[in-house]
């Protein structure tokens, strides 16, 4: 198992995220429908599908794929998700951009920078029942694992677990921002849609990178 991967080999990570969103579009809309307006899967898969077309026409590296994804989300999705996920992926891309090799440290900087940008743009805090709950928990888990000496693969595994935990934590929260806030107490019991999609995306990244690392 390697401890880093080449930027130029990483576009598959983006393709896999796209596939994840497309596969889970219905589930995401259903979750959003329970306490929001039911369009999260539609919004996301629309943007990710456009990105796929762009990437197929114009292949590139990991940073390039992330940049296309971020740009498409920013240009095509609108709402709050467009700029938030758009910013997230553009930040990941910016940090990865001038790196030939993506190391454990590099990926940590990507995650930190991405999650900070999301929080500064959206003003949501942990506990508001948003994608931020997933993001912060995942980044925290990655950071802790790395600090205690885990290699990239192990840190990614920790991130995936952290993401799932963050997502799960939203189940018992009351929504404070976004459409689900309409329901107040009634939003309890259902996880947040954005937190769910964010966990799916981070889990997918962890899985894809570990596949790359396992390759000879």
């Amino acid at each position: 198992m390697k401890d880093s991967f080449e930027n130029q080999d990483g576009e598959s990570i983006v393709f896999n995220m796209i596939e994840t969103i497309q596969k889970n579009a219905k589930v995401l809309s259903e979750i959003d429908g329970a306490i929001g307006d039911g369009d999260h899967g539609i919004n996301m898969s629309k943007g990710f599908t456009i990105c796929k077309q762009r990437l197929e026409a114009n292949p590139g590296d990991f940073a390039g794929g992330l940049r296309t994804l971020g740009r498409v989300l920013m240009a095509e999705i609108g709402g709050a998700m467009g700029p938030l996920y758009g910013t997230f992926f553009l930040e990941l891309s910016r940090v990865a951009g001038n790196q030939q090799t993506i190391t454990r440290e590099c990926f940590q900087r990507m995650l930190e920078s991405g999650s900070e940008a999301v929080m500064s743009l959206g003003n949501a805090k942990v506990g508001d029942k948003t994608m931020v709950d997933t993001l912060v928990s995942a980044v925290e888990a990655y950071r802790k694992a790395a600090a205690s000496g885990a290699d990239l693969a192990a840190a990614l595994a920790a991130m995936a677990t952290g993401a799932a935990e963050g997502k799960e934590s939203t189940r018992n929260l009351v929504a404070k921002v976004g459409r689900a806030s309409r329901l107040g107490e009634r939003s309890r019991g259902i996880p947040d849609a954005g937190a769910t999609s964010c966990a799916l995306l981070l889990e997918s990244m962890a899985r894809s990178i570990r596949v790359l690392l396992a390759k000879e």
Partner: protein
Amino acid sequence: MQRIINDPNEVVEDMLKGFVLAHPGLIAATGNPRVLKYAGAPIAGKVGVVTGGGSGHKPAFIGYIGRNMLDAVAVGEVFTSPSAQAFHDAFKTAHAGRGVACLYGNYAGDNMNVKMARRLAEDDGIEVKTVVANDDVPSAPKSEREKRRGVAGEVLMWKVGAARAARGGSLDEAVAAAQKAIDNTRSMGIGLTPCTIPAVGKPNFTIEPGKMEVGIGHHGEPGIRVDTLRPAREMAEMMLDVILPDLPFSSGDEVVVLVSGLGATPVMELYILYGAVANLLHESGIKVYRPYIGNYFTSLEMMGVTLTVMKVDDELKELVDAEAECMGLTQFARRATT
């Protein structure tokens, strides 16, 4: 879902096609399919006036594109903010060298997308100033006015800001006029039925028959309470009791009143409500300078109404009364017979 649509995921595209075909000479398409402009825009020497917002609010937003009205509009999915790119392209479309006034409503998505679009426009050397409508009183206490949503008062903000720009006002003047309009405007809605986003296919909230949601937002955002359905005159009272003390409006004030249906409420009922509002304002010593009654800012097929009151001085009167031509609000310059 009893709808006149093709693919529910393409309602915005299909609607935009029809809209452009329906208004040649008034509306023109642009390079960005999610940006429409006034056929005459950009107008040399004029500050550009732009807004943007989710679809499903007809006439808002694109219905206010026109002569002496908006120059360009960024169009979002149903009930979803347009993308930063769309706002950015709208700025470029409207810009004629004197800057762009972006007059929009206070929603998280819009705030983020406008923020990003402004950054992009700055890189192009386009000066963009913003006014953020926050006329919906029930959406936050007065101490947190910056959290309030923008609702039907946006129409008056656009009318005033656009008229100032059309009269040759500078960017600062156009923005100041629009800001003055919205600062003097207070609104409140009552919802009677929910609505269904076509791509979703079922209502994402409910209002029981015999109930009404007092203070509901334009996308079904929660109101301040659910109450039993009351007669129109009590609804009027309920809304004025929230609106009037907030500015506050006082005896002797002159106001523009806008009663906008939320979509499916028969226009007959808007006049019934206006009759009650006019009586109550009269009793409070507040003079209606000019009323607008109709479907000015809707929420798909929601039943219900938004009441908007704007306190006017000579400047606001002049700008509200200016001639305008657009799908949502065509009026001759005020004279004896209007």
